[in-house]
Every structure is written in C-alpha cells, then in structure tokens.
C-alpha cells in the first residue's frame, strides 16, 4: 500500500512541478469557463436596429419606443428614404430594419390590419430567426395593449408562454452545466493520455517497469491522480457555475457526484487506453483530441441529439458525455432525483468498466 501511495505521490509531484502539465490543469478550465460562460450564448442583446418611420404618429413612436427600450435592441440609425435600407443591411450596420408605413396609425384607428415591415439580415439564419422572434413578441404585445386601450376588438386568442426550469430562457443556464462535463473531460483526458507517453519519452518508464510494481499497480497509480484532479476540477466549475454565474443547483449533490465519479472512470479509461498506445506525448495529445472533438459534438452539449440523423443518434449511446450531460442538466435545472437517473448511471458504469479493462489489457500488451 505504501508503495502504491509513493507512486501516486510521485505522479502528483511530476504533474504539478512540470510547468507544462500544470498549465494543462489550470489554463484550459479558466479560458474555457470565460469563453463559454460569457461569449457562448444563444441570447441576442443589443441587436443593431434601424428605424424607418414614415408614419410620424404617436402610435408609431410608441412602437419604436418599445423596441428601443427593450434590452434586445439598440437603435443605430434612423432612415428617411427607401434607398437607405439596403446599404445599412449590406454593410452589417443594422441587423434589423423596422419599417412603419405612412398609413400605420390610420389603419390602427380604423381597426383594419396595420402592416409593419421588418427586414432582417438573413445571412446568419439562426440570429435572424431569433431577432425576428423578438420583434414579433414586441409587436404582438403592442397590438394587445393598443387593442385593450382603444377598446377595439382584441385578437381572439393569445399565447401566454411560461418556461419551466429556466423561466427567463437564459441560455447560460443551459450551457454552464454542460461546461462541467466538457472541462472535466478535457482535463482528465489530457492528464491521463499524456502520463505514460511522457514517461516513455523521458525514458523513466523503463526505470519504473524494472521496479517490482505490477502492471496493474502502475495503472492504478496513473488513474488515481487523474480521478482526483478531475474531481477537483468538476467541483471548481460547479462552484463557479452556482456562485458566479448564478445557475441554480436544484438537485442532490450526492446524485451529481455519483455521475461525476462514473463519468471520470470512463474518461480515465479512454485516456489510459490512448496513453498505452502512444509512444510520444505528441501522439498522446493527438489521440486525446481525436476522441474529445466527436465526444463533445455528439454529447448534446450544444446541439440536441434529437436533431442528429438516426445512425448518428445510435452512435451517441457509446459516448459517456451523452449520459453525463443528461445527469448534469437534470440535477442542476430540474433537481432530478437519483432513481430517475439510474437509466443514465448504468450505461456510464458499463462504459467506464469496459474502458478501464481495455486500458489494463492494452497496458500489459504494450508494456514491452
């Protein structure tokens, strides 16, 4: 036992004293937390808006005020002529042009349909859709209010939507729990995938192999530091998510950590498999990214698995990230209890045990 502890201690010292591997543990989490926490969002704020108001009436001014006062839009230009619309959009000065016709208020008063034209830059379809959605909401609210005030006929039915779990539909609430999985995976993979390769490259692996350590002891000695570092990393990001980004953590911590432990097992298994196969650190790094990129894309981290072609959807069942994402979002936003996540826990456990066993097998075979 003391021999195993010495091995684990050595592993930690080697990892933490080497500036390069220290960076691997500290650098990516901070950078990615900032990138994903602040930059990666589906919400649109301050959409550049150009206003072409031909009506000049009180009603039109009220509608424009609703746009300008909403946090989603910011007025960047006022247009007086048709010909000005195209250049503004083309040069990306405005993403959306609100065009109110000269008859706007008259039509409103007459109770007939008053048209409002919204021109959107469709080059980025996703943004265009979200921006026009915002515009529709503002215009609909305006119509309902106007109808209520003027006593004209109200629309027969209106939608009142209420989003559960994320009432303000903040995309940060959706993304940040995912980062826990993403970063834990990246750091654990890098730490374990490089560990054997680093020793091979520096020639210390032979020196380790001539000691009386059994191959499984060496494997455990490599796995435990990865596990502990992954655990610390996950805890750090959970704390940042809750305390800094204000994401609610509604579920049970024990449920969450069961998921983390099982997920780490599979991440370490894959990392050690890559490590046993690679001779140089470069190969280890390449192997790690060869696994990381598809694992993240096929996890449902950013795009829903349900939108993927059926064959690819089948493939995601092999991806430990997939189960972990469900656990994370479940525990964070829904407060899903342990029993309901068992269907996610057992596949993770199966993947973890399988990868660890294959790593052990590869390790024995590639020892020489």
């Amino acid at each position, binding site marked *: 036992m003391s021999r195993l502890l*010495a091995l684990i201690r050595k592993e930690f010292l080697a990892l933490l*004293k080497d500036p390069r591997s220290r960076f691997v543990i500290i650098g990516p989490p901070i950078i990615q937390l900032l990138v994903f926490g602040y930059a990666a969002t589906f919400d649109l704020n301050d959409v550049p808006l150009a206003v072409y108001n031909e009506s000049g009436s009180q009603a039109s001014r009220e509608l424009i005020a609703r746009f300008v006062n909403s946090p989603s839009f910011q007025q960047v230009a006022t247009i007086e002529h048709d010909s000005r619309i195209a250049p503004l959009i083309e040069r990306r000065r405005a993403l959306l042009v609100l065009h109110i016709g000269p008859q706007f208020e008259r039509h409103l008063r007459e109770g007939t349909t008053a048209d409002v034209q919204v021109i959107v830059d469709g080059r980025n379809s996703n943004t265009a859709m979200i921006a026009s959605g915002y515009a529709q909401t503002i215009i609909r609210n305006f119509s309902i209010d106007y109808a209520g005030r003027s006593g004209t006929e109200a629309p027969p039915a209106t939608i009142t939507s209420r989003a559960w779990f994320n009432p303000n539909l903040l995309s940060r609430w959706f993304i940040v729990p995912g980062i826990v999985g993403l970063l834990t995976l990246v750091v654990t993979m890098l730490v374990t995938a490089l560990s054997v390769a680093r020793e091979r490259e*520096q*020639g210390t692996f*032979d020196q*380790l192999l001539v*000691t009386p350590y*059994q191959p499984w002891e060496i494997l455990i000695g490599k796995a435990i530091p990865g596990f502990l570092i992954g655990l610390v990393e996950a805890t750090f990001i959970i704390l940042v998510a809750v305390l800094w980004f204000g994401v609610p953590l509604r579920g049970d911590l024990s449920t969450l950590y069961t998921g983390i432990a099982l997920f780490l097992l599979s991440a370490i298994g894959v990392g050690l498999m890559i490590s046993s196969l690679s001779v140089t650190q470069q190969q280890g790094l390449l192997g790690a990214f060869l696994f990381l990129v598809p694992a993240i894309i096929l996890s449902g981290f950013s795009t829903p698995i349900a939108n993927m072609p059926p064959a690819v959807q089948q493939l995601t069942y092999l991806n430990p990230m997939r189960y972990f994402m469900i656990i994370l979002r479940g525990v964070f936003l829904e407060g899903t209890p342990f029993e309901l996540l068992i269907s996610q826990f057992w596949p993770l456990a199966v993947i973890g045990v399988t990868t660890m066993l294959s790593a052990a097998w590869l390790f024995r075979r590639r020892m020489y």
Partner: protein
Amino acid sequence: MMDESAASVVPGQPATPGHSTQNDAAKPVVADDVVLWAEGLTKTFSAKPNDVTAVRGLSVRVRAHRITGLIGPDGAGKTTLMRLAAGLLVPDEGRIEVLGLDCVRDQAAVQARVGYMPQRFGLYEDLSVQENLDLYADLHGVPQAIRGRRYDELMRMTGLAPFTARLAGRLSGGMKQKLGLACVLVHPPQLLLLDEPTVGVDPVSRRELWAIVNRFVEHEGTSVLMSTAYLDEAERCDEVIVLDEGSLIGQGPPSQFSRPLTGRTFRVRATGLGPRDVQTHLALRSEVIDAVIQGDAVRVVLTEAAASQPDSVLTGLEQAVIESVPPRFEDGFIATLRAKRSAGSAARSPVPTARAEPAARDGLVISVRHVQRRFGEFLAVNDISFDVPRGEVFGLLGANGAGKTTLFRMLCGLLPASGGTLQVAGVDVRKTAARARARIGYMSQKFSLYGTLSVQDNLQFFSSAYGLSGRRRRDRIDWALTEFELGPIGDQTSGGLPLGYKQRLALACALMHEPEIIFLDEPTSGVDPLARREFWQRINSLVHQGVTVLVTTHFMEEAEYCDRMAIMMSGRLLALGTPSEIKQQAVSPERPEPTMEDAFIALIESKPPAGGAHA
C-alpha cells in the same frame, strides 16, 4: 624488482620543449593556413533555472589540410562550437571566421564552403541511399556531369555500392553514418565539420569512416574539424583542441598532451590479486594520479616525484611487478583535468571502499540458455547462451544494433523472450518477472530519473517503489545522500543537474534496495573521463561486497574493466571470455599487443559475414 626498466625511463620532461607551435601570439597568422579562427567566443543559452554558457571566451585556430580533433565530455561546448562555425548560431560575444569569411555576416557564403554533419545526420529514412545522395547533390547544386563519377567514388569508399536501392532507414547504424558522410561529401567542402561521427558505430565502420576522412584530407586537401568522445581517437588527429565546460584546456598535437607524462606511466601486474583489488589499492595512494584496469593488469600514472621510484607504489602488494609503458593522450587529458578540477574544489573525492572480506564467488546469478528474440522477420537476438557467477563484472559489447540492448532488456524483464530460458538470481524471468525485478538494480544510459522532481523526491520514490519503509528507508536515503555526496543538492531539481551528478543519483536510486545484481546500460556514455573513473570505483567497491554487475558499453576501453565479456554482432555471440583471452585471439607478428578494438575487428573479419538482412 624491475629496476632496469625504471632506470631506462626518461624523467618527466619540462612542459615547454622547442615543440610548442601554437603559442605563437607574436607570429602573424598566415591567412591561408588557418581555416577556422575564433577569438573570445562566448555563447549562452537561456534555460531554466540558470542560463547555460556553452562556450566561454574561446579562442581557437584550425589549420588547413589536416584533421583537428575536438575533445571533451558532454557539455564541454563541442557541438556549440561546430554550430557557430557552420553559421547556425550567432555568438553572444567574440568573432568567428571560417575560410576568411565572417560566420555571422557571410553566413550563406560560409555554408556554401563548409560541410557540416551533425550528430544525428538528417538522412531521409524513407528515401533510398541513391535518392538521399541525389537530394543532397540537388541541394548543393552539384552539376549532373560530375555526379556519376563522384557517386561511384563515394559508394566505393563507403562500401555502400551494393545497397544503393535500400531505404536509408533500413541501414545499420554504421552504414547510416557512412551514408551521412557521403551526402556531405557529394559537394566536397573546403572545411568539413563532423560532430561525433563515430559514437556508437561498430569498430569496422569506425575504421572505414576514418579512412574516408583521411583520404579526403590527403587527396582533396580538405580541412577537418571532428569532435569525438573516444579519447583513443584523439591520437589519430594531427592536432587536438581540448575543451572542458566551455573553455579551452589546450590545443596542439596529441603528443603535446602525452609528452609531459613520459616516464610516468606504468603497468602493474600482481599474480596473487585480481586487477580490481590492485586498482583499488593503487587508486588510494597519493602518488598515483590515475589507475585504470587493462585486462589483467592495471595502468597507472604517477606524480612527477614518484616516477623516479615507481617501485614504491608496490608496497603492500605481494608478488607485483611494475613496467614502464609509453604515455597515451588519455593520460595527459586526465592529468590536465585533475589539475584543473583540484584547483577549484578539494582533491578528487576518495570513494569509500568497503574493506570487508571479499564475498565468495559461488553459484550462478545469471543463466542464459538459447535465448532468442524475434521482431517480425528479424532476429534481434539469435540463440545466445552464457552464465555469470556471483560477484563478477560481465560486459556486453557491441555496436548499435548488435542486439545487446535487446538482450539486456530481456534480462531485466522489460521484454519477453521469444525462446530459450533466462534465469536471474535463481528466478525464471519469463515466468515471474516481478520477483526477479525486486532483486535487481537498473541504470540506463539516459539516467532516467524524474527530471521535474528534486533529488530527495527521486530517492524517496525509488526507495518506496522497492518496498522500503520506516527506518530502513530513512537509513538508505541518508546513506545515498552521504555516499554519493548528494546532500548539498538534495532540494535541487534533478533535471537541471550536471551529467555527473545525474549519473550518481541514478546509481543511488538503483541501489536503494541493495540489489544482488545491477544492470548498467551504457552507464558512462557522455560523462567526462574523471566521472567515469569515479563511477567505476563505486562499482568496484560494490563488486567487492559480492554484487554481480552486468554492463553494456560501446567504449572498447571500458570492456577492459570487466572480468568476462561477450562481444555481440548481428544478434549473435561473436566471442566470450576474459578481456585477455579475447585480445589473445588477435595477436599477430605485426601486432603483439592488440587493443580491444583490434581484437573486435579481427574477430569480425575472421567470421563470414552474417547473411541477415541487417548487415
């Protein structure tokens, strides 16, 4: 007893006879006689935690149409000087000129006239021999018209003519070096810079490389600057530049270094005692500057005062005879280094030797029977059998690719054998490798320690790895820190230590669990000759306590330190016996006292060439 030989000896000569031609600061330098000229050259590399000054205020001259040797241990600045001369580095201070051109300003012109062969020459392993030659001819713009004749000549000289279609990656180490040299010579340079071209190359290829270089010097008037780690090669140079820690120790013909020691070099033989005991005895005496084992005798260098009375060193040794031998370059080199080092620190550290009763040599500790190792089609080790009794130093000798490392790894349990039986310390390595491993110590050529860990951390880890704990562990760590004088640097990061310290730490780590057998894989390659002597003194004291040592080396001279040795070639055992027995096989009328290298070459030439793919 041997008074007449002692009397015939010329007493130590004063240092400056009429010979010294290089101290001619007053004499103007003849421009076309000097091909490389450096003045006050300094180059520092920034490295954590301390900057490394590879070359420090170096001033040297290399003369035309001759071979100048660049001698010094690893880290002496040999490669840096070469790279400065090739215009690949810019000096921090001082100037360097090659063929009258400034290496910094006229870098392109210098590179067109100079041929530089780095330690690992850039052969394209996936191209054939011919394609490599064509590539270098194209790079240097050699006209098509003269290529044919030049290729023929180079292929004939290197003996590569039958292999022009073979991929460079599939050549043996010696053949690769020869091809590398051929590629440099495709466009004959005026100055040839060769960086350790013969390291790890088998003696036959080494001899051929020298023949090629000599031929170019004689016929084409090429000037050569060649660095080497082998001190016996220094004697083949017309002139040598000796470096240590970036500064110049001396420059001149090799005889200039050995001449002051004329009359101070002797050989001691004692019939009653083994050479190792004789050496241990002699090395402790203050009048002995250097004592090394040479087969069954010990070669000593005495201080000037003691040289007139050489018999005096024999007190305490029974039935010993001392005879005068001519000095070698190495003797001069050691004497110079010793003088330089002892000026700074205390005198050479006396390695404590256990004066216990020598352990009995009983029983076999290593037994190898018909061992084979196959890599695909290729037999790296082919049917090898030998035994090593307890307390013996057994050497495995061979060029790179001879199979010695493969055999070595199998003995340590790092590589499974394809066939045969291997027993180490009575344990079958093929069945219970872990049990065998607990009883061996292992130290490899790269001194593979955890570079980011401190000296203490390394010792702690390896002691625990071998299952030491509590008091015993503390005692062993203390022992290592005192015995190997590592105490003062215990907290330093081991990666930044000088090579000599790394080697000591590696040996200390391998000895934490007091193993019965130690395996040393090229333990002294790259360390300076003083550190090598100190290392062997430690090994000798271990052997004295009954430890068995198995060592691989490509230093022919180091083979002399072994009790018995095996010479390997193409995976087979070429010879097995004591160093004297092996040298005996090469005795001929014209060579009454062959060196180990002569014996190696004679052995290879007496056997028909192996028909294997790995020629």
